[in-house]
């Protein structure tokens, strides 16, 4: 293992950097720019049982050091992801990919996860129980320990690959939800998803986002994300993937000190398409600067 390689639920990553779902498409837009095989892995566009357009536009808003999105899980549906997107991805990405799954009922999660679990290219299932954009669906599961564990138990019963549960920060006690997922058999936890936010257009006196509210992400949320990663990583024994506002190699190291074994990069990919490449290239220099010989030595280093 190299000095940057880490193990995520039994699978070795060359480095801990993972583009987050919804900010990297199905990979090939970025493969036009650089060889995406340099990534640890990446989490592809959130997939649901049926094809979805998502929310009406506008569904993007500018914020101070961040942005709001209310895309609403646009995706071609699991059947087309398997028949079209994964074969296309195979041409530019030879590593195991993280498959991000959303659903609007336990049955939908089960259906989608069971199908993706059979795909050879898929290394992990990242189960999104936290997307704040969809009315009455994803949000409800991730906001109570009972709802979260119900999804995890059902998905674990039909899958063989590691199940990483992606948590919402829009809850009172994220640690209780993380523990409920661990108890229900989750193999890992990833956090945080976007924070519910809103902007109003002063000229029209209406919300900028057609859906009124959306998920706030970008640099601005990093301290909140780091705090939650720290809390959860110290409360569970399963691996934690940290994300939220990560934009540079220093942020990756902070996340790992807080307890993350790997780190996802989200909104930064949208404004700097080379963000992940740059972070991977900067990591050795930043490690040297802070006297880190091997990234595994610092995971959870802050007690």
């Amino acid at each position: 293992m190299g000095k940057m390689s880490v193990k995520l639920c039994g699978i070795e990553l060359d480095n801990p950097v993972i583009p987050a779902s919804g900010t990297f498409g199905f990979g090939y837009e970025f493969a036009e720019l650089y060889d995406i095989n340099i990534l640890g892995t990446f989490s592809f566009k959130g997939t649901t049982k049926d094809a979805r357009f998502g929310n009406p536009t506008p569904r993007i808003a500018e914020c101070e050091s961040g942005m709001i999105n209310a895309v609403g899980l646009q995706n071609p549906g699991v059947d087309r992801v398997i028949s079209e997107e994964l074969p296309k991805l195979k041409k530019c990405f030879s590593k195991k990919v993280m498959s991000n799954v959303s659903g609007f009922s336990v049955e939908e999660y089960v259906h989608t996860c069971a199908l993706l679990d059979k795909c050879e290219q898929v290394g992990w299932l990242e189960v999104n129980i936290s997307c704040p954009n969809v009315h009455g669906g994803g949000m409800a599961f991730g906001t109570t320990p009972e709802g979260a564990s119900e999804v995890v138990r059902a998905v674990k019963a039909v899958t063989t690959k590691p199940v990483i549960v992606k948590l919402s920060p829009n809850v009172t006690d994220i640690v209780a939800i993380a523990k409920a997922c661990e108890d229900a058999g989750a193999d890992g936890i990833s956090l945080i998803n976007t924070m519910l936010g809103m902007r109003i257009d002063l000229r029209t006196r209406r919300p900028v986002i057609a859906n009124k509210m959306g998920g706030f992400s970008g640099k601005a949320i990093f301290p909140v994300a780091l705090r939650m990663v720290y809390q959860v990583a110290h409360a569970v024994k399963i691996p934690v993937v940290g994300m939220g506002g990560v934009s540079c190699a220093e942020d990756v190291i902070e996340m790992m000190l807080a307890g993350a074994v790997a780190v996802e990069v989200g909104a930064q990919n949208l404004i700097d398409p080379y963000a992940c490449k740059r972070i991977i290239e900067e990591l050795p220099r930043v490690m040297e600067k802070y006297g880190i010989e091997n990234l595994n030595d610092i995971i959870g280093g802050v007690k």
Partner: protein
Amino acid sequence: MKQVFLSIKENIALTYSVYRMVLSGDVSGVTNCGQFVNIKLDGLFLRRPISVCDCEGNELTLVYKVVGKGTEQMSRMTKGEVLDVLVGLGNGYDTSVSGQNPLIIGGGVGVPPMYMLCKKLISEGKAPTVILGFNKADEVFYEKEFEKLGARVIVTTVDASYGVRGFVTDAMAGLDYSYFYTCGPEPMLKAVYRATNTGGQFSFEERMGCGFGACMGCSCKTVTGYKRICKEGPVLCKEEILWEK
């Protein structure tokens, strides 16, 4: 798509709110008229998408209207400053289907991308007629530039302070054309859609996250499925458009 660093060669006001910025550097990533670029600006999180007005040699011309913080900041930039720009975004116009005498209809800040289109059509030996629509005389820009390309140009103003009185569709009555291309505010695009009986192409605008297809923030529904304005657009053909709003 290419990420390039371009230096400002010129940044001047054309009207009280419309500016022209000429950027110099490697602009080989711009591959078609009707494409756009996405500009990183200090202190703002999201890049700002701006349509390409012209691109030749190592120069890229953007004509933009000051509408918010980003464009306001751009208007204050000066010669020599360097911008981080993603170039070659979007599909652009297909000129192969234009026929001999296409009609170009630009409204307000929808006028700039029509310039490079017009230039290309003329270079292909076609004879475009150009209608440029504005609200009032002091908002008119680029009439002479289009004329210099050799196009027949009609300017309309809503308040009749310059050119033909009324909307672009008022100037279309009686014109004979083989095909049309248009860009402008959505009410104008809808009116053009209704007023035309040939095939045509429309360029759309939407709030974008990335501008290169990754976030799906700017998607729209079309007859032929969901399309990302930034990737499969911004140009859509008349027959695939679904007016939703």
